């Protein structure tokens, strides 16, 4: 069989364009490789510079004493012990207040609400918007709602107008932070519930379990790694935020640890802000500032690692001993 001359020519031309296209593609590939490599390098070097700077300047100051002593001499000496305790108290209160509400909301959204009802859609939009609100707005909301409305109201009713809860306090900062971290918990919980296999729910229901029993005994335990991860991420976020506690409970300096829900408290994140902007002697406080930042970074890092470890541990437990 002999091909027509025209066809031969066409085939040669086709081979040529294919070859040039291949060449062009390989050039594009190398450009992409270089570009993404450069992007990676930039990101890594920014992180490296920050970490290097913080570790070099902060590490020498980071001693046991720094973690266990209160600030002295106008914050130029001593440590950040009260700030660490204050943050722990705030984060615990925040978790107690926020996580149950967030988990309950997610359970309602995923297990009970009709996916097409306008109410469900409204809640979802509200959650998404809540996640997008700048944290300073949460701070102002906390001041307006919790401190000036709720706190002042409590004072009027229970304390004859004496200022107890009607001022910035641990409880109000924790509640403000709980509202801020609510979307994190809700989204993480809902995703975890969505990942629960349908077969397991059906198995439970087919055994005569009610919907509530199925949620309680099958869906939530199965989703618990996700819920826990969301909680830890919320805590990590809460530990680092300044704006929400700025007006609602954080103190510049306190001689005592917070003892009541109505006490003010110190927090490492706010402490960083104070040391870097309000210090009377910047040079003297700078090492302390660096060390505080280092503590804050280590804490956040540790929490994020904990989230990853918890997730993988629990996942292994729930997806089979042999796997």
């Amino acid at each position, binding site marked *: 069989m002999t091909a027509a001359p025209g066809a031969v020519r066409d085939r040669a031309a086709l081979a040529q364009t294919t070859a040039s296209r291949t060449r062009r593609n390989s050039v594009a590939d190398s450009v992409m490789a270089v570009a993404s490599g450069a992007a990676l390098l930039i990101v890594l070097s920014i992180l490296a510079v920050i970490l290097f700077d913080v570790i070099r300047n902060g590490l020498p100051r980071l001693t046991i004493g720094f973690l266990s002593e209160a600030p002295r001499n106008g914050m130029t000496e001593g440590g950040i012990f009260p700030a660490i305790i204050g943050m722990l108290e705030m984060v615990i209160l925040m978790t107690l207040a926020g996580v149950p509400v967030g988990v309950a909301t997610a359970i309602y959204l995923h297990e009970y609400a*009709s*996916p097409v009802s306008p109410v469900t859609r409204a809640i979802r939009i509200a959650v998404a918007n809540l996640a997008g609100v700048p944290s300073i707005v949460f701070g102002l909301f906390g001041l307006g709602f919790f401190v000036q409305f709720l706190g002042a109201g409590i004072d009027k009713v229970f304390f004859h107008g004496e200022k107890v809860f009607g001022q910035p306090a641990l409880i109000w900062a924790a509640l403000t932070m709980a509202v801020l971290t609510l979307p994190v918990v809700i989204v993480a919980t809902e995703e975890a519930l969505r990942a629960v*296999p349908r*077969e*397991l*729910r*059906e*198995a*439970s*229901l*087919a*055994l*005569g*379990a*009610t919907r509530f*029993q199925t949620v309680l*005994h*099958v869906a939530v*335990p*199965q989703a618990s790694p996700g819920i826990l991860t969301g909680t830890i991420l919320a805590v990590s976020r809460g530990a680092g935020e300044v704006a929400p506690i700025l007006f609602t409970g954080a103190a510049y300096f306190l001689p005592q640890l917070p003892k009541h829900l109505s006490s003010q408290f110190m927090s490492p994140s706010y402490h960083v802000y104070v040391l870097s902007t309000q210090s009377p002697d910047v040079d003297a406080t700078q090492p302390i500032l660096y060390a505080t930042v280092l503590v804050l970074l280590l804490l956040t890092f540790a929490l994020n690692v904990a989230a990853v470890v918890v997730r993988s541990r629990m996942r292994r*437990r*729930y*997806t*089979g*001993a*042999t*796997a």
Partner: protein
Amino acid sequence: MSANGAAKVEPAPKLIVRDLAVFYDGKKAVGPVSLDIVGQHVTALIGPSGCGKSTFLRSLNRMNELIAGCRVEGTVRLDGDPIYGPGIDPVAVRRRIGMVFQRSNPFPKSIQENVAYGLRIGGVKDAHEIAGRVELALTQAALWEEVRDRLNDSALGLSGGQQQRLCIARALAVEPEVLLMDEPASALDPIATAHIEELINELSANYTVVIVTHNMQQAARVADYTAFFYLGELVEFDRTDVIFTKPSNSRTEDYITGRFG
């Protein structure tokens, strides 16, 4: 005997299905189907994929209504008690009519806790009673000898066939009257399948079993009665030997002789 009107069978029916139709988003998937399921016998539902046999099975213990957009018409009576209707709790229905699924779906709990699950949610608290009923259920499911020494191990460490027998034990532990099985052996190897089939034969002494199967030999081996579904309709329902030797409907004959499906 044909699908028009109820198929007649001699012993007292356990489940009486009349004009049962299932709709998804307004589109009819099955029915209307009328048939009587005989107590303490095995009834097989056969037919090509998508013929509605699984949908029909799931409507016998109200599992379909968990799917959004699903609507069921007609009546099903269990020993004369309607299972559909206002004021009837599907949870109570499912306690009397248990189900085993196509893919084994043990909970990520211990073997013991898997079988005890239905008892615990049903309010049984006594540890002795639970242990006894777990052993009984595992024995009935022919799994006790294999797992008696590792009841506290994760159920997920069992083989596929063992997991499916565990799911059967779990369903039996709550002592249902009827056991629905949706292709319980389709994901198993031949040896595990033989185990399950043997088990189904034994179970029919005490339970009413309805089994959906793709495998006609399986239906012939385990079932006393067989219903052939095609395109959402019940084509023919009769004793298994009649269905497989002298079916009255040509479509049944075509299907069982392998001409389609």
